[in-house]
């Protein structure tokens, strides 16, 4: 009982502490990679590559962070992303409009969020089971739509897909003397907008503060007059919509879809949130931390690949080890703090 009371007293400081640890470790790791591995890590393009590849993961992790702060879990995000990719591609290939495709992505995400939210908050069914069913449904629908891999064949979308933001001053001079500017995809901009909007909602909007209150202690949130059911409902809607956006962003990145798209993304998103300092028990977490969590997770994978551990199993094993390290570190740090407070 004591842990809960302490967390409730100063939820922000715990959040900030965990986030600071993550950011510090990320910076240390990146600097070490720069010093020891050199190569691509010295160019700014490396960071942009990481961002380009993982824009959709960042968006999904943001939604998951919101749900986790509210004390829930949503494991359907990866499957919904994959469903959105598949349906948007099929729609575009039938000669659809890009704007309507984006709306379709949002609608699918919203639909999943609505159903999850209704079942979880108003019918009081365990979130794990509901979103598990959502995950099964989305994966099944993806294969029903098409078992074969699909490729986008749409002029307007190709134009949008190839639009890249070039930043000349972060570029580097290639061996033949040409300046190669740093390239950033549009998806990264969308991801940044999502991160900033969710950050602002969580920090300054009443709804965001309600998420923290609800996750910290549902009973006291109820006593404070917060509409807990509606708040929980909204948290799943946010997560659903963000999965929809993430699907569109993933489609802009890959331009193709197949049944195993975004496989394992839900677990990667949970791992990013945890590394970023979000606790599954709720009430603690921050989207900025999640962003750095995603970056840490993907940087580790990149480092493993470029440091010459070529065997296919090393990437997952090191990721698992890193995850173990972060989880233990958080547990020990939080445990110490609580002991200090009690003393």
């Amino acid at each position, binding site marked *: 009982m004591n842990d809960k009371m302490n967390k409730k007293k100063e939820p922000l400081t715990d959040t900030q502490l965990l986030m600071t640890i993550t950011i510090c470790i990320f910076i240390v790791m990146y600097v070490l990679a720069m010093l020891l591995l050199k190569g691509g890590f010295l160019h700014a393009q490396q960071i942009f590559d990481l961002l380009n590849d993982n824009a959709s993961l960042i968006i999904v992790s943001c939604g998951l962070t919101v749900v986790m702060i509210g004390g829930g*879990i949503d494991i359907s995000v990866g499957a919904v992303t994959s469903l959105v990719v598949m349906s948007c591609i099929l729609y575009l290939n039938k000669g659809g409009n890009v704007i309507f495709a984006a709306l379709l992505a949002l609608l699918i995400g919203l639909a999943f969020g609505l159903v999850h939210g209704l079942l979880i908050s108003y019918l009081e069914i365990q979130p*794990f089971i509901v979103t598990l069913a959502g995950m099964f449904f989305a994966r099944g*629908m993806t294969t029903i739509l098409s*078992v074969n891999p699909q490729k986008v064949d749409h002029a307007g979308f190709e134009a949008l897909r190839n639009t890249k933001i070039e930043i000349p001053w972060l570029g580097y001079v290639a061996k033949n003397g040409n300046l190669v500017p740093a390239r950033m995809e549009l998806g990264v901009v969308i991801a940044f907008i999502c991160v900033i909007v969710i950050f602002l909602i969580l920090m300054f909007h009443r709804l965001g503060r309600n998420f923290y209150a609800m996750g910290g202690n549902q009973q006291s949130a109820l006593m404070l007059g917060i509409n807990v059911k509606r708040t929980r409902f909204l948290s799943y809607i946010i997560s659903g919509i963000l999965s929809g956006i993430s699907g569109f962003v993933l489609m802009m990145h890959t331009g193709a879809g197949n049944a195993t798209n975004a496989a394992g993304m839900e677990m990667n998103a*949970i791992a990013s949130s945890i590394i970023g300092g979000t606790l599954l028990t709720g009430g603690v977490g921050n989207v900025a931390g999640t962003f750095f969590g995603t970056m840490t997770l993907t940087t580790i994978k990149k480092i493993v690949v470029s440091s010459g551990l070529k065997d296919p199993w090393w990437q997952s094993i090191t990721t698992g080890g890193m995850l173990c390290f972060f989880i233990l570190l958080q547990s020990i740090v939080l445990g110490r703090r609580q002991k200090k407070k009690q003393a």
Partner: protein
Amino acid sequence: MKDKTVNLKGGLGQLTIPIIAVALLVIFNLIRDPGFFSISITHNNYGNAVLAGNLISIINGASELAILAIGMTLVTAATKGQDISVGAAAAIAGSVFVKVLKSGAEISGGTVILAFICSCCVAMIFGAFNGTLVAVFNIQPMIATLILYTCGRSIAYWINGGATPTVTSPIINAIGSFAPGIPIPMPVIIVIIVTILFKLLFHFTSLELLTQSVGINQSAARLNGINTTFIKLLSFILLGVCVSVAGIIGVSRLGLINHETLLLDVEMDAILAVAIGGNSLGGGKFKISGSIIGAYVIQMLTITLYAMKVSSTDVKAYKAIVIVLLVVIGSPVVKERFAKLMKQRKKLAKGGEAA
């Protein structure tokens, strides 16, 4: 069997939902195809008389899931969380099993037992690792087991040295399908043995009571002198045993270990089995029998869908719809509403009689 009748008479027992689900599926199948559950005797490649039919394939196919559901129920009850690494851990256990079998010159009964003990130990060590994170460091089970979920299949790959080795031996074949002279599939017999062992464990020790008390209120359990850390750790170690048995059945069925596909996504199904069995995923009271029925419900659903010519990749979507229906029926809010409605009706009926 005794439990079932008691609960059916009592009305809203914990087993209501799984039994209703089984009944609905059976009725649905009988209407669709009256011969669906017929059992026939055929001869397999080795000339043994064996039972065949949809019912046998349901009971046989759910074996791994049923065994995992037993362990998962314990973990859920004690720690208020779920182990999502069982599939990955089963891949590791299977790899160790094959590795030990392959290290000897020929596969005899002794090597199989040795291999089983080795894989069991490894699975228990990984279980203890998860258990330590959960019990000693107070990390939520889902997050603690996320570590093994992430890297488990890669560890299995590493044990195999980047290959998918095969084992061919009459003994392995017997474990995976039918033993000579016994018409019942071997995995089913293994499920029965494991269930009896757990029943005996609960009968002769107070583990069931202790697990429930830890799950219901950890602080109160500790104040009453229960070693909560040990109980949580033990539940994970027992799950490790279940995982290794399930992994070995999975390996024996195919005669090879494929770290990528062995018991893929079984963790989700196992958790589902626990939930369909009427156990709260929030810990506390549990019934092993519920989870086992839950496992058979899932398998029956899958086989029914296959029989309706749904392709194996699309099964998930239909499964999801049935799951949602089941949990909606079982949700506390709906139950309450339903009870109120019934009361009102009774009142109305009584009022009508009086008038």
